[in-house]
């Protein structure tokens, strides 16, 4: 029997036994749905992590000099944390020494921040990132102004009480009014709004627009940190090579300032987007390792169901098999008929799984902060898995059908 004939026959049988067929495809369906949806979300996360998260928050070719890592990932023992807290803080002098000592062209900015409250005209915005920075911070963060302007080196040096508001904060305090030129208060101290930043979007569903930035030396310095101390020094180089050069120079400067001997560990940390991406790679690798396990469980279950249904089909259709054999069907014709039937069943399940998985990915994309990106390979794998499971599960029932004795099969009722 030609292959095309076998498929047509299989589709007819599947169609006439819709109920039974839908049971048997459900396992494969779930497995493939899962595969497509998870792979899509993971792939989406991948792109998101590299293109927006790491680069938006930490910047391309940028490193942070800090007392201890700002982005802490994985298991960190309390012992390590205690050690971190014993480290000396990064001081203004440290920052100035690094700035002065770097030989490659870089952008440098100080940054210190703390959560706090911003008030305007009786309205109170809580849980706002209050950030004290130097002027090049805006360039490193690639933050443009929607209205007004960022502050200048002059304003930083002289510690002017001016402030740039995040998009959402500005909207919350001012609604439709123009914030530029008005005064907001942070801990009772008035700051003149000189600019509103363009929206920075969100990361993992958290808005990046709930902040207020003031010059590092403005009165905000007393709120965000102890005197003459900063959270981090941001350094942005123009290329990866220069970034690496800047990192080793910074390390050398800091170690010499702190009088560390070569055997001693650095008591400060230098952080790049790579660290975050490495961590994400670990999660990614874990998901991609765990995924086949999860998918194969449902596929094995699906395969067993299909095998059962096919065994039932062979038992129910013993007479049909006998008739076909009496009319000249060879073993391989019967074998093929049942194999194609189970493969078709599973492939139909896989196809539905793909459609549903794509739908789920789109739904996740639309309703949560998780991005989804469909990986074409996952669709190919889905189809192949479906067909594979169908053939695997059909093998035993099909060979039983093929080996039936025609005389006995035809008498079977």
């Amino acid at each position: 029997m030609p292959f095309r004939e076998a498929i047509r026959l299989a589709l007819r049988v599947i169609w006439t036994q819709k109920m039974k067929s839908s049971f048997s495809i459900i396992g494969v369906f779930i497995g493939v749905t899962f595969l497509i949806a998870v792979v899509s979300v993971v792939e989406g996360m991948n792109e998101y992590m590299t293109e927006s998260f790491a680069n938006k928050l930490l910047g391309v070719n940028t490193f942070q000099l800090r007392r201890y890592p700002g982005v802490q990932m994985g298991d960190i023992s309390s012992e390590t944390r205690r050690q971190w807290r014993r480290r000396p803080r990064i001081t203004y002098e440290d920052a100035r020494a690094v700035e002065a000592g770097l030989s490659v062209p870089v952008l440098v900015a100080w940054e210190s921040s703390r959560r706090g409250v911003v008030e305007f005209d009786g309205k109170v915005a809580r849980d706002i990132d209050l950030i004290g920075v130097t002027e090049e911070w805006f360039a490193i963060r690639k933050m443009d102004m929607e209205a007004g302007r960022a502050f200048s080196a002059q304003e930083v040096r002289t510690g002017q009480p001016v402030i740039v508001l995040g998009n959402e904060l500005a909207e919350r305090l001012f609604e439709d009014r123009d914030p530029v030129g008005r005064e907001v208060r942070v801990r009772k101290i008035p700051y003149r709004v000189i600019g509103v930043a363009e929206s920075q979007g969100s990361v993992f569903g958290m808005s990046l627009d709930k902040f207020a930035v003031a010059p590092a030396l403005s009165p905000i310095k007393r709120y965000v940190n102890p005197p003459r101390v900063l959270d981090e020094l941001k350094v942005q180089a123009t290329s990866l090579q220069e970034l690496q050069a800047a990192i080793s120079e910074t390390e050398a400067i800091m170690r010499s300032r702190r009088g560390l001997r070569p055997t001693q560990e650095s008591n400060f940390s230098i952080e790049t987007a790579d660290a975050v991406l490495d961590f994400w790679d670990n999660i990614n690798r874990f998901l991609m390792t765990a995924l086949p396990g999860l998918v194969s469980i449902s596929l094995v279950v699906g395969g067993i169901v299909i095998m059962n249904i096919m065994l039932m089909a062979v038992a129910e259709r013993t007479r049909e098999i006998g008739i076909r054999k009496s009319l000249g069907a060879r073993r391989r014709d019967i074998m093929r008929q049942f194999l194609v039937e189970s493969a078709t069943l599973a492939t139909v399940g896989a196809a539905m799984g793909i459609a549903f998985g794509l739908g789920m990915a789109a739904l996740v994309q639309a309703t949560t902060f998780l991005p989804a990106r469909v990986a074409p390979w996952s669709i190919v794998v889905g189809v192949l898995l479906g067909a594979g499971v169908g053939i695997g599960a059909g093998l035993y029932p099909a060979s039983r059908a093929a080996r039936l004795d025609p005389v006995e099969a035809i008498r079977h009722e």
Partner: protein
Amino acid sequence: MSAELLIRVSDLTREYQMGAETVYALRGVDMAIRPNEYVAIMGPSGSGKSTLMNLIGCLDSPTGGEYWLNGMEVSQMPDDELARVRNREIGFVFQTFNLLPRASALHNVELPLIYAGVNGRVRRQQAARALERVGLADRMEHKPNELSGGQRQRVAIARALVNDPSILLADEPTGNLDSSTSSEIMAVFDELYHQGQTVVMVTHEADIAAHARRVVTLLDGVVHSDTVREAA
């Protein structure tokens, strides 16, 4: 052996193992059938006539002895070649029709052609012609349960004939039919015989056997009598 012979069986035996017991269904049958014979195989139940029919139809393999069909030794054939012989050389008509219940009359008749590798329009044309030959041109798309018993048996005959077999075998072809339908069906067999078709049928009814030109009687697994009647 003579090339004239269509079927030659010699010392054909068939034993069944029923638990510890061995049942001897055929104990050594010798028989020869020439082209365009019309043979009825008779005998009481248990005489081995159905077993012989299944062996001749290549649905079963003998325990011992030889079976030659059209110059080929069928008794030594592997499974796949037997399937080919069933497909090309033999048309089998069963007592219970054995049509596929979910398939149309046309599709049922197409089945042997499918296994012969005939495709598409040619296949449908051949199947339709076979149905026309048995007078069912207007019932092609009917399912078996939409047909009368006689019509079903006609479909089965069309299916048996569609590959133009050397021999048409019928196992109690009228066993499930009433008497008027039986004579209709027998008329079809008679007509096919007159057209040159070799027909071998198993029956236990004398009036059905009377249609044949030769009657072979089996008793206890051996040939008891073999009589040729001159044309009536």
